[in-house]
């Protein structure tokens, strides 16, 4: 701790570069303690509610005792360094991890008070209620129209061609793709640009009227303009859907989300209002991560 009056400019400069703070103990002390989530994990009217979730890949534990609520019509961003478990956690929310043989999930995950890991629950309608958009746009090798119509068809959401047409049009409009696609609905979805393909995948997801949309790094394969359009879209979708987004871009998390959850080595370290997380986080690890320092 420097003490005494600082006299010269050089002395001040030297001190500036080495000076420890006197008011920063609350962050520093917690650097090695992240088993307890900082911040309020519960909300008033949760759309989804997770309690004590553990995830294992074989013997290796990937998620440790994570509890978190996702509120209705909120956008929650999950951030953290590679391998922190944020994608794994997201994939638990519509049982996407079921497709991995060695993956085991324990704990409680409720969608509107209903346990989605209940043995009696059919996973197909669950995934219609909780849709997912992946990092790489993955349109079916079908026409644009069929890409969007696929879900409503298999779930029997439309009784007539007119109704199906309407679903396709609304979904494409909501995804902000209608104007670009309306004259080429019969052309293959794979012929669209990357950003358009991603919006097509979002249209496909919302065609089955999901309640929750999970997005796993939806913009990491897109250029800045396409990214901006997707972010704009997320902003519009939030009035009708609940959205959980995993992103590597902290600026994106700061721009699109209401709340942000920071994961580290499989633990949920901190969750809070995005505005607070990005200006004044409570956990040292969160701050180190979002300011671009080592964790």
């Amino acid at each position, binding site marked *: 701790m*420097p003490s005494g*009056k*600082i006299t*010269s*400019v050089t002395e*001040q*400069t030297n*001190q*500036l*570069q*080495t*000076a*420890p*703070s*006197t*008011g*920063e*103990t*609350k*962050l*520093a002390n917690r650097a090695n303690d992240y088993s307890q989530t900082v911040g309020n994990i519960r909300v008033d009217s949760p759309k989804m509610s997770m309690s004590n979730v553990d995830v294992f890949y074989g013997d290796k534990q990937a998620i440790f005792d994570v509890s978190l609520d996702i509120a209705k019509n909120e956008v929650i961003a999950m951030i953290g360094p590679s391998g922190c478990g944020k994608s794994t956690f997201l994939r638990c929310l519509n049982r996407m991890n079921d497709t991995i043989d060695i993956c085991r999930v324990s704990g409680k995950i409720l969608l509107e008070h209903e346990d989605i890991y209940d043995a009696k629950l059919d996973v197909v309608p669950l995934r219609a209620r909780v849709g997912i958009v992946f990092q790489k746009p993955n349109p079916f090798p079908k026409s644009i129209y069929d890409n969007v119509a696929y879900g409503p068809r298999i779930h029997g959401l439309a009784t007539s061609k007119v109704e199906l047409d309407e679903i396709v049009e609304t979904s494409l409009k909501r995804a902000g793709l209608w104007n670009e696609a309306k004259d080429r609905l019969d052309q293959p979805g794979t012929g669209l640009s990357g950003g358009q393909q991603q919006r097509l995948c979002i249209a496909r997801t919302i065609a089955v009227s999901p309640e929750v949309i999970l997005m796993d790094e939806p913009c990491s394969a897109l250029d800045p303009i396409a990214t901006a359009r997707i972010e704009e879209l997320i902003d519009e979708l939030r009035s009708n859907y609940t959205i959980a987004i995993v992103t590597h871009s*902290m*600026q994106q998390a*700061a721009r699109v989300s209401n709340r942000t959850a920071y994961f580290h080595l499989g633990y949920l370290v901190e969750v809070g209002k995005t505005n607070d997380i*990005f*200006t*004044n*986080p409570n956990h*040292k690890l*969160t*701050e*180190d991560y*979002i*300011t*671009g*320092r*080592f964790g």
Partner: protein
Amino acid sequence: MNSDNSSGHISQRFDDELDAVKSQLTEMGGIVEKQVSDAIASLLDADALLAEKVVKKDKSINTLEVSIDEDCALILARRQPAARDLRLVLSIIKTTTDLERIGDEADKMATQAINLAEEGKAPHGYVEIRHIGQHVSKMLSQALDCFVRQDVELALRVAQEDKAVDLEYGTALRAMMTYMIEDPRSITRVMSIMWSLRALERIGDHARNIAEHVIYLVKGDDVRHLGLKKMAEKVHET
């Protein structure tokens, strides 16, 4: 490596950029502090030469303000700083504004010193200038110290001192008015003293602002317009 200063980023150049802008701010603080003490001395000693030096030097403060703000704008654009880094850049931008204004106040005092040197010394008021001048100089130097050390306790003391300065200023003003009533021929010269006192009082306000920026930087709480009691609570919050 202590994460409380600007270092420790994965990008070493980001560290360097933040350090460079902090060094510039410290340099600016040093010049401003000297300007204020020179301006006070030029008033007390009726030293027109020193006063003219102060007026000339003000330009270099303005140049530094522009340069620091430009560097901060580049950091914002290039690095999109968050959390503590963001607060650091914001508080530097705000502190340069306060320092530049303090420079302007020193310039005003020096101008009054030149006037007084030409018209002859005022009959009264030098005790007040010396007293409030010392008080305010100490506040300014503490405000700069607390920025460098990121010492919120010291910042709180600076804010508390500002209240004392405001009281002293009020008392001094009443004394000056009495002098003017007693001897109307001295009004012009006493007015010069009053403008100088006013400049000192404003410097105290700016020193307090800088202290508030430090509290924001370290604690993340905006303590402007809160009042001293609430400010102290925020500082002592863990």
